[in-house]
């Protein structure tokens, strides 16, 4: 908990939150049990149970529209931002139920960060301000901003490229650099889990390689969940893998199979998984 939050709690503006009971840093376990999702009346995801182990990279694969991204957005309560979106089941971040009434979604999102498909640094802010934006936006303070900026950019693998141009606008970077800036921005709030929604789909192969290296290095102290359409990428970066599929037109997406990546790709237990990972459909 930051100094700012403590002050706000003292004067009674901010209620103490169950989130504060959590250990502030280090990779955490995410445990989804029987998760379903709806948009309005339409059920888009049904009964997904998946444990995302701490300090590991979990990849979610499957054809378009099978509910991978929806599932990912449920994991940090971004799903409910969409009007008409509803969710069922439980998500545990270590010992904390993130959908508990006592837990505010903004605090959950501070602990479970997210990187989106399209790189989108804030255009009104410099590179440095972008990295620090998470602090400013969540009302937290930091004692050593310089250090935090350098550390976050280092971990995102961008420091050496931008160390002399921290005052420039984020929009002046290339697409791959912008995406790494978004990763640095997400890391600066010290999340315990990082969710990535097809982070490389808008990037060229070289930038993709750099980001995959970054993902592997990050996994030591942040749990990573990544949605990807690229099966080679899933094999390269992930420890565990989960395969999602919609079986019939108009039905809800389900998780078909999950397990260690190697096993899932080399010895899938389900026919449908085998068909997908061997490129027979999807």
């Amino acid at each position: 908990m930051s100094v700012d939050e403590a002050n706000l709690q003292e004067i009674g503006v901010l209620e103490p939150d169950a989130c504060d009971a959590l250990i502030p840093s280090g990779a955490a376990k995410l445990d989804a049990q029987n998760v379903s999702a709806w948009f309005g009346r339409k059920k888009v995801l049904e009964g997904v149970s998946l444990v995302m182990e701490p300090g590991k990279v979990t990849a979610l694969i499957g054809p378009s529209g099978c509910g991978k991204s929806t599932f990912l957005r449920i994991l940090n309560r971004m799903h409910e931002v969409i009007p008409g979106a509803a969710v069922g089941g439980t998500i545990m971040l270590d010992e904390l139920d993130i959908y508990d009434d006592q837990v505010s979604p903004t605090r959950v999102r501070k602990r479970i960060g997210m990187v989106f498909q399209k790189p989108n640094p804030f255009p009104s802010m410099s590179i440095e301000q972008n990295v620090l934006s998470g602090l400013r936006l969540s009302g937290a303070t930091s004692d050593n901003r310089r250090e935090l900026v350098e550390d976050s950019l280092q971990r995102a693998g961008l420091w050496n490229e931008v160390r002399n141009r921290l005052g420039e606008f984020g929009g002046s970077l290339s697409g791959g650099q912008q995406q790494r800036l978004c990763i640095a921005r997400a890391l600066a709030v010290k999340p315990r889990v990082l969710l990535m929604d097809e982070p490389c789909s808008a990037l060229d192969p070289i930038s993709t390689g750099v980001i995959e290296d970054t993902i592997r290095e990050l996994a030591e102290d942040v749990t990573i969940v990544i949605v990807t359409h690229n099966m080679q990428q899933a094999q390269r970066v992930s420890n565990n893998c989960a395969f999602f599929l919609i079986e019939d037109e108009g039905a809800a997406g389900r998780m078909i199979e999950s397990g260690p990546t190697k096993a899932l790709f080399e010895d899938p237990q389900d026919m449908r998984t085998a068909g997908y990972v061997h490129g027979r459909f999807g």
Partner: protein
Amino acid sequence: MSHQVITLPGAGHADVLSVTHADEPKRPRSWSRRDVVELLLSAVAAAGATGTLFVIMDWRSLVAATIWWFLLFVVIYRIEVGANHGPIVAADRMMTATIAAGGLICFALLVWIVSFVIGKGLPALRPGFFTQDLSKVGPLNPGGGALHAIIGTLEQVGIATAVVVPLAILTAVYLHEMKGRMAPLIRFIVDAMSGLPSIVAGLLVYTIWILQFHRGFSGMAGAVALVVLMLPTVTRTSEEILRTIDDGLRESALALGAPQWRVIARVVLPTARSGLVTAAILGVARGVGETAPMILTAFGSPKTNLSPVTSPQSDLPLFVWSLIRQPNATQIERAWTGALILVFLVLALFTIARVLGEASFGRSRR
């Protein structure tokens, strides 16, 4: 050195268009000297045809002649380019000529209005015009100025803008960011308000403020009428600006653990800054030239009145409106000079706002 011969594919008259060096830069669709000659020839031919037509028919109207000339020009140009370069180039050139003509007409109108106002207003423009008012000069004496009107316009429009801009941006935030339940109703009311005739806004303030509450005419009453007129313009423009901000930015900010009000205050509004300045400019442009509601609210006065809250106050549109109807040349001359100052005041405000708005982040590379 290799040479390349470019011919038009499929053209029956496959004559050699140009011979260039292969590595010489050549921009497709660029204009050569020959193209300019074609354009001028068509223009002259059209002028000749128009002249003949008007002599035969014994027509006199210059406007009609211009329209006839332009239509004939387009037809002749189309045929000429079509014969020389084929149908694709002809269609392209014809559309270019038509669109350029549209742009020229708009620009010419602007130049005409501004030069007209300058021509009429410049003779009476002296330094004293900015430092004196009309309280001590008679209608026939030289001297006097528009200081009182300039002060009035700045105060009235300034107060109205200071009220409208925050209110309009907050409303736009409610309409597009909060997407509250009342949003469709409010949008409907704002749209309806934007069609409100300005004299009705003046009557509203006159009836309530001046007749009902006996506040008397004042610059403030004028400012209230301006608020009613400017609010819908600025609100709707601001909402359209917010609509252009990428939703990804909002989602990223939310995903960093930001409450919605911080997403709006620190990401959405700063990103939209330049556009919101434009919205405010459009509002000022709407308000600064309003005359009708000011007759019923600020009323006008020949004296300098620094206070917007007590007693009648003039402004530039009122200054122009009251003097241009006078029978003597001195007053009419003053009116034109007032109009000139109004035009350049608006121009100065626009320039300042543009500079402030653009001095933000550089365009992102995409």
